[in-house]
């Protein structure tokens, strides 16, 4: 039965995607992307990926929409030109789709426990996590410890993207058609959303911290928590105007956060070397290897959370400052 639900959701997703491509109003396309993100998250949840669904929820529902809308506000809302070489592109795309669909007939059936993916390293992770790390969430264990190098790399990609946006949008001239005081007031005149938003902000922050530090026991971790905490500050910025948000968390502090996250992560790795282990080997951090692993995961998740929060907020402010 649940498979049928999944199929229904996927069908809706395809319809949404076609709608996104067909509309020439970019605002509508962004709204439909919001729906697509909700559908994808629901699908992830049906496919047993609670952690991934939480990430998609944290990123897709709020931050992605906010970023696209601020980019639209700075560029244009309408797609002016017709597509180029429509027929040729369609033929290419249709042919490629058919080839991929033909290739899927060789794939193992959906949910097959004997598929090559399931028989390689995954059973080892599931079996050894209680022994080496002893936390219930295997996803966090793999993310933080077994594949710590990968995650370090991803954190550096996020870091680089953030620095890139700051370089692109940081300096230079701004468009500046709107009076300074008008643009800075945010949604201050909308009384009801403002009151409700102000009630909500502390709860979002609290939930973000819960997700950060509960990540070893349930769905959650640094990536999700970073996005949720960033979302709460973005909510504040939307309600009270961007300037007020910057006075709460100034740009310099954000730059500090961006740098701190990868430094903390790398520092934990180096501490492993100093204490006589390998890079990112947390077992040596404490006299009990299992405790050491848990401590290491806690620290690197904190590093991930800090850097994701910093980068997402810096990106948001870079776009918002461009409109001033």
């Amino acid at each position, binding site marked *: 039965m649940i*498979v049928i639900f999944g*199929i229904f959701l*996927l069908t809706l*997703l395809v319809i949404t*995607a076609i709608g*996104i*491509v067909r509309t020439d109003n*970019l605002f509508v396309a962004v709204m439909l992307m919001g729906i*697509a993100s909700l559908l*994808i998250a629901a*699908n*992830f949840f049906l*496919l*047993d*990926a*609670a*952690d*991934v669904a939480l*990430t998609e929820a944290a*990123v897709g529902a709020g931050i992605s929409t906010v970023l696209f809308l601020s*980019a639209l506000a*700075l*560029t244009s809302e309408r*797609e002016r*030109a017709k597509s180029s070489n429509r027929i040729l*592109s369609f033929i290419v*795309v*249709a042919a*490629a*789709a058919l080839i*991929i*669909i033909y290739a*899927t007939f060789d794939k193992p*059936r*959906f*949910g*097959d426990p004997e598929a090559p*993916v*399931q028989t390689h390293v*995954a059973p080892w*992770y*599931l079996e050894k996590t209680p022994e080496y790390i002893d936390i*219930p*969430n*295997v996803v966090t264990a*793999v*993310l933080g410890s077994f594949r710590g190098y*990968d*995650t370090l790399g991803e954190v550096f*990609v*996020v870091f680089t*993207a953030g620095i890139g*946006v700051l370089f*692109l949008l940081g300096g230079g001239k701004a468009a500046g058609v709107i009076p300074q005081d008008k643009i800075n007031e945010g949604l201050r005149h909308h009384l009801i959303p403002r009151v409700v938003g102000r009630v909500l902000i502390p709860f979002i922050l609290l939930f973000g911290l819960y997700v950060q530090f509960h990540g070893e026991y*349930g*769905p959650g971790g640094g990536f999700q928590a970073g*996005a949720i905490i960033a979302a709460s500050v973005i909510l504040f910025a939307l309600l009270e105007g961007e300037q007020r948000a910057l006075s709460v968390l100034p740009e310099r502090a954000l730059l500090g956060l961006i740098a701190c996250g990868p430094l903390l992560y790398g520092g934990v790795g180096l501490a492993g070397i100093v204490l006589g282990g390998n890079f990112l080997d947390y077992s040596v951090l404490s006299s009990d290897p299992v405790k050491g692993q848990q401590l290491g995961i806690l620290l690197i998740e904190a590093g991930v959370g800090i850097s*994701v929060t910093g980068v997402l907020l810096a*990106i948001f402010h870079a*776009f918002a400052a461009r409109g001033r």
Partner: protein
Amino acid sequence: MELLGLYHYWVFAILLMIGFYAVIAKRNLIKKLIGLSLFQAAVFLLYITMGKVDDGTAPIFPETGAVVFSNPLPQVLILTAIVVGISTTALGLGIVVRIKEEYGSIEEHEIQEIDKR
């Protein structure tokens, strides 16, 4: 039932190609980025689909009882990829905003015409 088991992969293929179509055929740069996001989403779905095991549950040990778990590895890869995806999309949007400021347009052919001059 055998064909139903492949439906997820077909949706992946179609979604991937819808995104690809937006990237190659649309001239608006933001629309291209939206297409790229769809493309990304399709790849995410493929990975998570492959990790699903029949009658499995999310790879978080419940307090009682051992059960069948789905594959944690694809989930780890995609979890990080989603956040990386939004950061790189933001970078792309940053570039588009700068292009708009310098060229006054975000339509590909207009930018090319300005470049020719």
